[in-house]
Structure formats: structure tokens, C-alpha cells
């Protein structure tokens, strides 16, 4: 399953855009080696500006989080828990367990996308392959998608970077996909921790991988794909060890449009009350 080399869907040409096939990413941290080739490939292909060379001081992560200029982000998560049946070296005298997890984070391309619903210019669209795309030349940088993403992915690019002012996030390499090519990050991933392919295939593959891992001792392996919430599933889903919170992933992400109804009811009630109060003021006190 892992390591199909040149036979894998990561290396084959495809016609998903022409055929309107839903595609996705399946990212598996158990085979990630933390090389950051995906981050580099993403920046190079998409010509994303650098966003500073600073150490966070936490772990070996110097990218921090996804943003306008970071579309792939390799997490370096350290936990005092065993990694499957692996025996780790001593961290302290009482030999607490220890594991190091690498996970390449990316835009989730939600089934119900908060950014897409919020965008007032129609700059953010759904593509033929089911991904969520920001049309850079249309975006006027209002910043409403930034607060509407339940995963904190999209952000406005600050001055003085190239193309500043607009909102940016992973494009799912839509330009490459239109030419039948695989997204840059999946193409370069040496261990196929990032797999690109048909969404239905990937979901089956993810379920199988979880089963395989659990049988070999990774008791806390699970898929992160919130299909039960108002986001209704994500097209770039993950296998995770342990709880989603540790990866900065919300356990129950919600699309903010579910809050619209109660907020608008409150707004209309206030509007009517204000009109009545004003008319009452003039009617009874003048």
C-alpha cells in the first residue's frame, strides 16, 4: 500500500479536471519523515514568498502554522506517549514513553467551506475536482474569509510581500491539475505520506490504513475527517495518532453560516424595536 513508487497515483498523469472527478489528499503521519520537501515544493511551484526565518522555540517547527505564505506546514509534535509498539530511548530517569509525530498540514478543502460562503466578491470558488480555490485577481482583501475558516487556514498577505493585500491559501495546485499533473507536495513526498488521488479511493485507503495500524499496535490511530459536523467532511483528510487537539485541529469544526439564522433574527427584531421606539417617541412626546 505504501511505497508504490512510480506506480502510485502520486506519479501518474490524470484527467480528473476534465472528467470532473472529486479528488483529495490523504496525509499519513506514521510514514512522514519530517523532511519538509512538501513545504519547499509548494513554495517553489506556487512562487509563495518566504515568511521569515524564525525559530518558534517549540519543537523543531519553524513554520508555526498555515497562513497566506505557508500552504503546507509540517508539524513536529512531541508527546510523552508510546508510538505503537516502538520502544523509545529514555527521556528521563524514570523512562517515560516518548514519541515524535510529523504531520504535513494543509487547507482541508471542506465539503461546506466557510471561506467560500463568506467571500463577498465571489473570488473563492469550487473547482471541477471539488477543491476550494481563491481567484487572486478578483479578491479585494476584505478579510472576511480569514475569520470564517474553522481551521484557521486562509489569511491576508501583509505588506511588503509580493501580491500583498489579497487572501491566500493552498490552491490544490489547480494549475497543475488542469494539465493532468499531480499537486507539487504529493509529487515530491518521498515516503508517500501525502497521497493524492480520487477522494473515494483515498477514503477507502485511509480506513484500511487505520485498521492496519491498529493491528500493529497503534491503538490511538484514527482518521480526522469531520463528516458529522456542519463542515460535512474534508477533501484533504488526515490520519492522526491521539486527539485532534494536539495537532491544532478542532474536534468539531463548524461552518459559521450555521450561526446566521439566530443572528439575523436578532438583527430584524432590533430593527423593528428601533422603528417602534422612534415612532413612539414622536407620537407621545412631541
Amino acid at each position, binding site marked *: 500500500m505504501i511505497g508504490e513508487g512510480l506506480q502510485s497515483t502520486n506519479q501518474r498523469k490524470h484527467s480528473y479536471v476534465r472528467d470532473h472527478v472529486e479528488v483529495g489528499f490523504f496525509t499519513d503521519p506514521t510514514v512522514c519523515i519530517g523532511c519538509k520537501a512538501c513545504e519547499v515544493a509548494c513554495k517553489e511551484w506556487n512562487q509563495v514568498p518566504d515568511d521569515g526565518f524564525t525559530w518558534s*522555540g*517549540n519543537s523543531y517547527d519553524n513554520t508555526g*502554522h498555515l*497562513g497566506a505564505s505557508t500552504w503546507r506546514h509540517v*508539524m513536529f*509534535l512531541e*508527546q*510523552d506517549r508510546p508510538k505503537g509498539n516502538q520502544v523509545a530511548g529514555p527521556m*528521563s530517569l524514570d523512562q517515560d514513553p516518548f514519541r515524535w509525530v510529523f504531520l504535513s498540514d494543509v487547507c482541508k478543502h471542506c465539503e461546506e467551506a466557510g471561506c467560500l*460562503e*463568506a*467571500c*463577498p*466578491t*465571489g*473570488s473563492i470558488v469550487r473547482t471541477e475536482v471539488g477543491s476550494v480555490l481563491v481567484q487572486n485577481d478578483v*479578491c*479585494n482583501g*476584505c*478579510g*472576511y474569509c*480569514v*475569520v470564517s*475558516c*474553522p481551521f*484557521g487556514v*486562509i*489569511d491576508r*498577505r501583509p505588506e511588503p510581500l509580493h501580491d500583498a493585500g489579497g*487572501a491566500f491559501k493552498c490552491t490544490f495546485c489547480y494549475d497543475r491539475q488542469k494539465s493532468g499533473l499531480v499537486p507539487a507536495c504529493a509529487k515530491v513526498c518521498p515516503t508517500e505520506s501525502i497521497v493524492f488521488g480520487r477522494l473515494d479511493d483515498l477514503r477507502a485507503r485511509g480506513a484500511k490504513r487505520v485498521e492496519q495500524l491498529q493491528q500493529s499496535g497503534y491503538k490511538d490511530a484514527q482518521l480526522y475527517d469531520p463528516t458529522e459536523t456542519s463542515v460535512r467532511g474534508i477533501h484533504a483528510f488526515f490520519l492522526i495518532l491521539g486527539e485532534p*487537539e*494536539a*495537532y*491544532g*485541529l*478542532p*474536534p468539531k469544526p463548524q461552518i*459559521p*453560516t450555521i*450561526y*446566521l439564522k*439566530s*443572528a*439575523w433574527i*436578532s*438583527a*430584524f*427584531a*432590533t*430593527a423593528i424595536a*428601533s*422603528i417602534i*421606539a*422612534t*415612532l413612539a*417617541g*414622536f*407620537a407621545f*412626546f*412631541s
Partner: protein
Amino acid sequence: MTNGPQAEQRLEQLREEAWKKGVVPGKGVDVAGGPIPRKPGYYGQPVVKPPVWTWEIPLYFFFGGMAGMSGVIASGAIIFHQVDLARAAMWVAAVGGAVLSPILLIMDLGRPHLFLNMLRVFKHRSAMSMGAWILSAFGACAVPGLIALELHAHQIFPGTLDQLLRVAAGLLIFGSAIFGTLLATYTGVLIGATAIPAWFLHRTLLPIHFGTAGLGSAAAVLELLGHRIPALNFIGFYAAGVETALLVWLSVDKHGAADRAIHDHGSGWLIRIGEVLNGPLALVLRFFAFIPFAAISFLLGALVSRIGWIAVGKVSGADPESVFAAEHY
């Protein structure tokens, strides 16, 4: 530091502390969370993105709310034949809603020259899109409404044309009232329907606060412009009363860690100070008939609480634990 048992002991101490707490406060680098995060979340990184909006947005909420509700007051004044008050209110509506608000909104855009793209689509599920259309419709009513009203008031044209202007002014002023109430209240929906916990947990309160603060601001500014009439005084009492109730509501409606930006953090004080200024203080000042002071207090409160709500959103969005805590509601 020199070699010796004391120095070694200090290093042992630091190691113990780092292992137990995950944080070593003191001189040098403050390693928050590393190597093993002791708090929920990924090394304190935000889960959702805090808003990128700057000072223009709270100012827009302030002027937009004031202008929108001025349209309502202008309508009331027209119905009850107070043409001078209606003229003043329409000036506030036109200047605030058709000049200041668009300027502030365009200034806040990342790419101001593309502002017209706001009217590229109509999306009822995007409060930002609805806001752009509401503001445009309001401007399209308030400016010609003001012009028609002024032409009619000065009797520029004779006979039938003047009668036509009178009807047009009336219709446009009523239009300003309808779109004005939406302009003053939609801003609460705008920030209430987001992924920021401190905002979406108070999505019912926000439109009430923004709309009522707008109505009170409109009355207050008209009073300061010299229209000291009982009707505006009544509106001032109503707005300050509602804001007092909201102050109580906000202090009771707590959601633990999920909205701690409001209750524990410094930025929450901006909201409370604002609510005291436009709630109880404005109410008491008005009760003792210090009307100009009540008006100024209300205006200040309306502005400060808007600044506070944006500040709270920035704090809440950057706080991963508040997002995890909000999942339970």
C-alpha cells in the same frame, strides 16, 4: 556562571521545572510548551485566525450605525412634520452612510482599488456581501433623499415639480429608514457568524447592541446639533435602557474558557467601559436632565464598545483553548 555544584544544581532545577510545567519562565528564551506541550493545542498556536481588521472597522461600525438609525429618526420626523429635524437627520445619514462609511471600508481593504468587486455577486449567505448591498442601497436612498428634501425645504422649484420632490423625498427617506435599520444591525451578524468563539457565542447580543447603540448615537448627535426635543430624549432613554440590560446580560452570559477574552482579558474591559458609558451612566445623566453630557457619554460608549468587540475578537481568535472550549457549547 562558574563551574561548581551550585551551577549544576541550578541546571538540574531548570530541567525539572521544564519537564514538569513545560515552561521555564525567567531570563532568556521563554520556551512556551516545548518540548512537550502541556496545554491543549499545538504549542500554543492559534486554531482559527484572528481578524486582520484594523481601526477603520470599529469606526465604521460607529458611523454606519449612527447614519443608519438617523434614517429612522428622519422618517419619524417627516411623519410628525418636523422638517428641520428631518433635514439634520438626513445630513447625518448621508455624510455618515454615504461618505464616511465607504471611505473607512475601502481603507480597510487589502486591495482598495478592487472595492467595486464587492458588488460583483449577491450572496445572502455572506453577511459581508449583504452588508455591501445594504450600504449601497442606503447610500442610494440617503443622498438623493437629502437633496430632494433640501430642494423642497428651500422651495427651489415651483408648483408641481415641488410636489414631486416632496413625494420623492418622502419615499427616499422611508427607504433610508428600512436600509438604515439593516445597516445598523447587520454588523452584529457580520461578526457573530464567524469562527471566533467570543463573537459567535454572543451572536444574539451583538446585533441588539450594535443596532441600539446606533439608534442612541443618532439621537445623541442630533441633540448635540441643537435639536433638544422630548422625542429624541425618549429615544435616548430607550437606547440607554436597552444598553444597561445588555451590560447585565453580558456579565451573566459567561461561557468559561470559550469567551474568556471578554471576561478575563483586558480587551473585555473596553466592552464593559463602553457599556457603562452608553448604558447606566447615560441613563443617570439623562434622568437628571444633563442631556448634552448624556449624549456625549452615549457616543463615547458606542465607540469604545465597538473598539472593544474587535479587540476581543483578536484575543479570542489567537487563543486555541477558547476554540476547544467552545466546541462544548
